[in-house]
């Protein structure tokens, strides 16, 4: 393991941690002090950021970036599928209720 690969993994980790900390800022911007408020924008952004993190983990930590095309496509497809499912069920719930 050379310094370059160590640095790359550290940079990926720092990006992932930064996004995680960004959640707290996102929530505090939406909430009214300690009272939590419903927010479609926060929900959509939180889900999208989670999917970005998941893809980064697939690509970098799970080394899918070096995998055959079929696995790269499959993992990308899964990220899209979960994104569509999560946002779809959230908006469906809003519409039904």
């Amino acid at each position, binding site marked *: 393991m*050379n310094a370059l690969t160590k640095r790359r993994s550290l940079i990926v980790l720092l990006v992932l941690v930064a996004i995680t900390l960004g959640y707290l800022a996102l929530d505090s911007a939406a909430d009214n002090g300690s009272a939590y408020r419903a927010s479609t924008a926060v929900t959509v952004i939180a889900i999208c950021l989670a999917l970005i993190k998941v893809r980064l983990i697939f690509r970098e930590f799970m080394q899918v970036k070096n995998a055959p095309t079929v696995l790269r496509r499959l993992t990308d497809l899964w990220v899209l599928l979960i994104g569509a499912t999560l946002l779809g069920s959230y908006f469906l719930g809003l519409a039904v209720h």
Partner: protein
Amino acid sequence: MTGMAPAPQPETDAPKPAGHIPGQPDMWVLVLFEALVFTAYFAVYLFHRSASSELFLRSQADLNPWLGTLDTVLLLTSSMFMLRCVQAARAGAVRTAMTNVCLTAALGVAFLASKITEWILLTRDGHGFTSNEFFLYYFFLTGIHLLHLLIGFITLGVIIYQLRNPKRRSQEIVETCATYWHTVDLLWILIFSLLYVVR
């Protein structure tokens, strides 16, 4: 399984040939299947959350977002050490790989301790599996994730066993176990977002 890799190799980072699947393909089938099962849980959770928005928000306020953030950072960091373990094992640097897998395990234990602490604190505040719909989902999702974490510890044990036995060492098994561990991290990323962050 590619089998044995007994001969020590020089510590280089020569990239794997293009098209290398990290670990056994069977593990990837399991990972994607597990992910789909969890997606179904998440979809049901989000649908019901929209129905009882006030209840979910009120209950969610009793969670400690800092503890959830800490849990996330612990698992993300463990994933980085797991990657380094795989890379070191591939380069034949067994001692470095062992150090990294032990760091991964230590962070996993820290996550376990943090999660149990959170459960205890919530239980003391009167929240339980049957308190309301939000906590039903909370304990179910975090509980089933914790079960996966415990299985993850077994995979870490397999990696340590592989690294300690030069005659048995298989890079593919190390990568297969690493893939499982990353999945535990990946699922937590989604659980954290849905339980602690969404509004």
